């Protein structure tokens, strides 16, 4: 039976080959189980979380600034304020959760790493940074959407987190607070302007306290940063964005030529390699150009030969412009507002902080006189925030949190006379895909 022998040998060969052929392993990817196993891999997963932040922060800034009165869409300059609908809401909802999920992997896996695979110092540092990043995202979710589902575990299957509904805005801010508390305990004061550290936590907490109206704490935390020798205002104004990691920066999302950002293409004109999808609003350009108001902050603008004013804050054509999440100028303005609003207002202190910013921008300072009311000072701070932090996603939520959106934006976007529209709609596609999600009322 030579034939059967032959066939048998062939079959054995074939089966030998089979199991090998079917047991393929991905080369550029690793499966879930074996991924975070030691300090090095934990560090890589943390870096991946920063990468996610790089992915969402620009889009959120644009969505927020378009909702206010600083920025308009170039192609539809008539609509000064983008009309938010559930179908075109923006804001970066899904990218925010990508960041949260990556942070959750780090937060979830690190405590379980065996002794000896990671030092305590590294463990604390990595965990602290992950908590900070998650806190930052929950803070953004709360201020943009007014409350979001809180997920604290990594997703491992399509049904993970099923049944988790939206929390309230208060609960979402509380989650941000809780994460920042943990980060504060774990992180050190070693300054790295591109990464989270204790000062980054202080600065974000100061902002969070402003949003949650705990003025004393806001002042205290802003002061912690202002007092630190590592941080100071740069002069001229333009240095903070033409340079890199200047003393102005507390937390700066960095890009490099190997890790480029395409954010500049949203702002620069075609002649400079962009599309200027968005441009500063004309009325606001007038303020920036006014030597009495914008002062040296007019350097943010560039006039094209056609006469359009483009923003050049993010204008490095090689895609290396940073995005500024926290900088020291904001801390002065946080403290100015907190000092004016706290139970026992410190109005001269508020003016002093305000003047630090004005002086740096080369505009006339305000001389304090007791005739100033608290309200006058708050309006001055509000205006200064608009001029000092115009394109970093602050304007819209600043006006919303002080309850003035109807007054300030109502004329250009009548919808905003209705408080329901002070938060963004959850994108319609996300509502369809997640039965647990409920849309914000009015949308």
């Amino acid at each position, binding site marked *: 039976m030579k*034939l*059967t022998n032959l066939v048998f040998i*062939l*079959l054995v060969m*074939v*089966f030998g*080959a*089979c*199991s090998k*052929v*079917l047991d*393929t392993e*991905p*080369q*550029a*990817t*690793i*499966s*879930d189980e074996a*991924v975070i196993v030691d300090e090095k*891999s934990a*560090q*890589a*997963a943390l*870096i*991946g979380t*920063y*990468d996610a932040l790089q992915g969402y922060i620009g889009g959120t800034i644009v969505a927020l600034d378009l909702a206010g009165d600083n920025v308009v869409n170039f192609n539809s300059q008539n609509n000064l304020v983008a009309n938010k609908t559930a179908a075109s809401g923006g804001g970066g909802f*899904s990218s925010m*959760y*990508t960041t*949260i999920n*990556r942070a959750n*992997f780090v937060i979830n896996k690190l405590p379980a790493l065996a002794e000896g695979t990671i030092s305590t110092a590294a463990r604390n540092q990595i965990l602290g940074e992950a908590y900070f990043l998650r806190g930052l995202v929950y803070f953004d979710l709360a201020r943009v959407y007014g409350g979001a*589902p809180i*997920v604290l575990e*990594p*997703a*491992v299957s*399509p049904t993970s987190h099923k049944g*988790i509904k939206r929390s309230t805005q208060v609960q979402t801010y509380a989650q941000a607070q809780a994460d920042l508390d943990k980060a504060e305990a774990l992180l050190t004061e070693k300054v790295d302007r*591109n990464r989270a550290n204790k000062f980054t936590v202080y600065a974000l907490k100061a902002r969070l306290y402003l949003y949650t109206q705990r003025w004393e704490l806001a002042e205290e935390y802003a002061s912690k940063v202002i007092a630190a020798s590592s941080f100071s205002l740069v002069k001229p104004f333009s240095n903070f964005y033409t340079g890199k990691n200047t003393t102005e920066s507390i937390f700066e999302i960095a890009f490099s*030529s*190997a*890790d480029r950002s395409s954010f500049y293409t949203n702002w620069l004109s*075609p002649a400079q*390699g962009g*599309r200027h999808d968005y441009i500063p609003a004309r009325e606001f350009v007038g303020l920036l150009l006014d030597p009495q108001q914008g002062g040296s902050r007019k350097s943010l603008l560039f006039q094209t030969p*056609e*006469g*359009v004013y483009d923003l050049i804050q993010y204008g490095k*054509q*090689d895609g290396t412009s940073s995005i500024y999440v926290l900088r020291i100028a904001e801390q002065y303005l946080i403290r100015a507002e907190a000092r004016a609003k706290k139970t026992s207002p410190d109005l001269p202190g508020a003016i002093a902080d305000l003047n630090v910013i004005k002086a740096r921008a080369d505009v006339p300072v305000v001389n304090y006189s007791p005739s100033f009311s608290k309200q006058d000072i708050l309006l001055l701070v509000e205006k200064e925030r608009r001029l000092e932090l115009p394109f970093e996603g602050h304007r819209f939520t600043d006006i919303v949190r002080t309850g003035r959106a109807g007054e300030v934006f109502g004329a250009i976007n009548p919808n905003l006379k209705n408080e329901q529209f002070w938060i963004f709609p959850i994108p*319609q*596609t*996300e509502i*369809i*895909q997640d039965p*647990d*999600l409920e849309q914000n009322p009015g949308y």
Partner: protein
Amino acid sequence: MYRIVPSRNALRRHQRDHRRRLSWLLAALILLLTNYSTNAQTTPLINSTLTGTVLDARTRQPLHQAVVHIKGTTHTVETDTKGKFDFVTGQKFPYTLEISFVGYEKQEVEAAGSPIEILLKEAPKQLNEVMVVGYTQTRRNAQTSAITTVSAGDLSKASYTSVTEKLQGQVPGLMIASNSGVPGTSVLVRLRGATSITAGNDPLYIVDGVFINNESLQGLSRGLGGQTPNPLSDINPEDIESVSVLKDANATAVYGARGANGVILITTKRGSKNAKTKLNFSADYGIGKATNLWELVSGTEHAELVNLVHQNDGKSYATRPFRPLSEVVAGFPAYGNPEDQKTYDRVSDVFRTAHSQRYNLSVSGGDAKTNFYLGGEYQEQESTLKLQDLTRYSFRFNLDHTINRKIKIGTSNSISSVPRTVVRVGDGPAGLFQAALHTPTFYAFYNADGSYAKPTVFDNHLAILANSDNHAVSLRSINNLYATYSILPNLSFKTSLSNDYNNYHEKAYYNTNLVYGQPAGEANDVTTTKQSLIAEQLLNFYSNRNNNSFSFFAGNTVQYTKTERQTLTGTGFPSNQFKRITSAAVQTASSSGSDYGLVSFFAGANYAYDKRYVIDANLRADASSRFGADRRWAYFPSVGLAWNISNEKFYPQNSTVGNLRLKTSYGLTGNQDIDDFASRGLWTGGRNYSELPGIAPSQLANPDLRWETTSQFNIGLSGSLFNDRLTLEADYYRKYTSDLLLNEPVAAKTGFSSVYRNVGEISNTGFEFLASSKNITSKDFTWNTTFTVSHNTNKIEKLSTPITGSYGMYRLEQGFPLYSIWVYNYLGVDPQTGNAIYEDVKKDGKITADDRRIVDDVWPLFEGIFKNTFTYKNLDVNLNLFYRSGNKLFNYTALFLDVGGTRGVTRSIQKSALNYWQKPGDVDVLPRPTSVINPDGSRNYESNSSRFLEDASFIRLRDISIGYTLPAKFTSALKISNARFYITGSNLLTLTRYSGPDPETNSAADSESELVQGLDFNGVPQTKSVNLGVNITF
């Protein structure tokens, strides 16, 4: 249907089971064969000696291995290489010999003495034709499957680069659409509709037994704006002998997990045994043009319309865009008075008269033991859109050799190199079309200082023409090596090894004159390699005794496919003279790879009784590495029945209807065309930050992921009329696909956007009809006609949540076909106000996003060809009309060009936009030009509305050719055996109501994952061309 195997040990056990089962099968088979051979004993009593020769009746060439059998005995011999045989037998003269040879008519001859000469006539290639279907050979009338075979002579005569375009319309049920007029770009091929949403709808292509890759390997990071190369254009259509399209489940089930979208078997030319060496040379030269291009407004018309919109929007006269340059208003640029605007024509700058040339040389022949085919080709084809062309160098070598009566070996090889010049055509600021078609005509080409003007977001078209530097080379080698061993005269074993190596190398350099070259130049260099290795073993048994014919096959294939990609990028060049990445300041490189394996076992049997009843069954078992470990194996069975009614005794012998035949089949096939590691939870590197390496989860796990399964029922009736002069074939089918593989969106809170899941069901139902008729067959004049028509209805039977594809207007929803159009339903213009009226679906008096609905889909109602061939003496004329009806195109180009000036100075306007509402009472016009939102919340322009969904039905004179064959007296004087001169015209005439340049355009056909089909977004129209050529055989 699926075995659930809980662990790897169990998987091994499972494989052992397979092994055991197969050995049982083999043992049974061998027993059966031993039986046959014991019957073949002879008695050694000598009564007569007979020697003879078997020759081809026409050529008188000897026939090797013809089978000579003495009727009524078991005595059988085979002829040798000289066609000779001899018998030493106990039979006495006279007795009857039965002589059979594959491809020849069986003959009975009375032998009265020795020697004897027997002439065999070649069988007419019709109903008794032996067909190769997958792994088995059966006669056509023992087929139960729906299969259409097109021979080389019937392929389109037009000068296309790939065989797919040449097949258009020839095979009922096979929908083929040339997506663009650029040679060598992708062609949409759908057999009996679409069975899948994201797992691929392309049929499986097999060339001489090699499963070939038909996925584009394009990997250029900057892309070509929706344009992808067609991997099948690596194969020279001149080398093709025939194409068989396997349509129903019974024919495709033996291809199991890859059979759901049909199988296209391509057979290339092989030399004939015992034939004189034949040399064939052909040359072809052609010119082509793109016609019916877009017509844009003049500069003045543009300016007037934009000023009108400004006025209609209620804005200040002082800030109107087109006003004297002297009227300066800060922030509101002035462009000069409308009447001062000049008109600059960019569109005609980017099109040209395209030249093409093709030379083909082949040599074929063979002796008694060996036959060969050598083919070489050089061709050059320009696209009518500048900066695109294709060159192909291809070489083929096919050889078969008979070592002895038992062993035969052979090989099929094709090697080709296809260099292309390419350019980004569509989407994005760098597209040539955007630059030429979408830049308003009033802008000058150059700035005052002589530099390229770049007034809008698009590149300057002259800058692209002068500076584009984008090339790709495809290197392809398809090889097969086989050996067959005749274990017994009717049992053979075939083993074959195949290789498909495909290398695609792309190089692009963008200098500072181009947007991608900002600020200091960028270069990309991408090499993608895909290689499949296939080992296949096949046992084939065939028996034909009395009234029973039985065939059986069993086999196994193991396939391993590996893809590798290297990407190099350089930015920051010292100047525009330096183009290679080595000169770049920043150089980045990345490398990635992936692989998958597929192991299959298959078997099939065909039994025909008395040429009347046929039963056929096939089974395949497949395992793919792409699926969850617990879901790896799947089984694909099929069964078919056929009834040759006209062979029944009761059937009237002289009926007008001959060869009447009813066939039906049912079976299962699969689809595994998804990412190699789609079932795993994965993490990916490269998620870097601050110059540190980062990783991140990139895919959610789904261990339950399994095959898409398609069940298909087919019933067909065929027959012929008027002594086989009119042949008719009709088929009806119903395909039902379940467990659709879909990258389904998941809740955002998971941090992922989608996961591969088995969700949803799709059905395809349709019919196909083919009529071919020999109208006139006189000595000097012949006239043949072929007519095909096919219809398919596609429907999503189950899908939990609707999915919206790219561009926002493509929608998948339960109860509707794939690629349904979901837009505002445009009802026309209110003659009083000039405002657009849209259907208020929600009936709330407002037009909101909720008022979009599915208005139609892009599928054709029916399509086919009407082809006529005439010959008169040495003249031949071929007319091939292709028609498609009921298909829709979303004219996305018109959405930009017909916006009535609301896009101001950023986009161009086409002439038809000038027909707008001007005063109450105007009808058949576009809405009043304004960008102000109407009282009901709608917009007059810039909405994805049904206004842009157009009927793209058409009838097209696909090709017309006139040929003249030199009379024999000239050719013999010139010592050549045949010479034909021809002229061919392609796409010379198109009848359509579609407003764009080409109703066949399908701009994003390859964006399967984006769910887009039937989109016209800057498509390069099909070329109208005229070719002259000659074909000489020595």
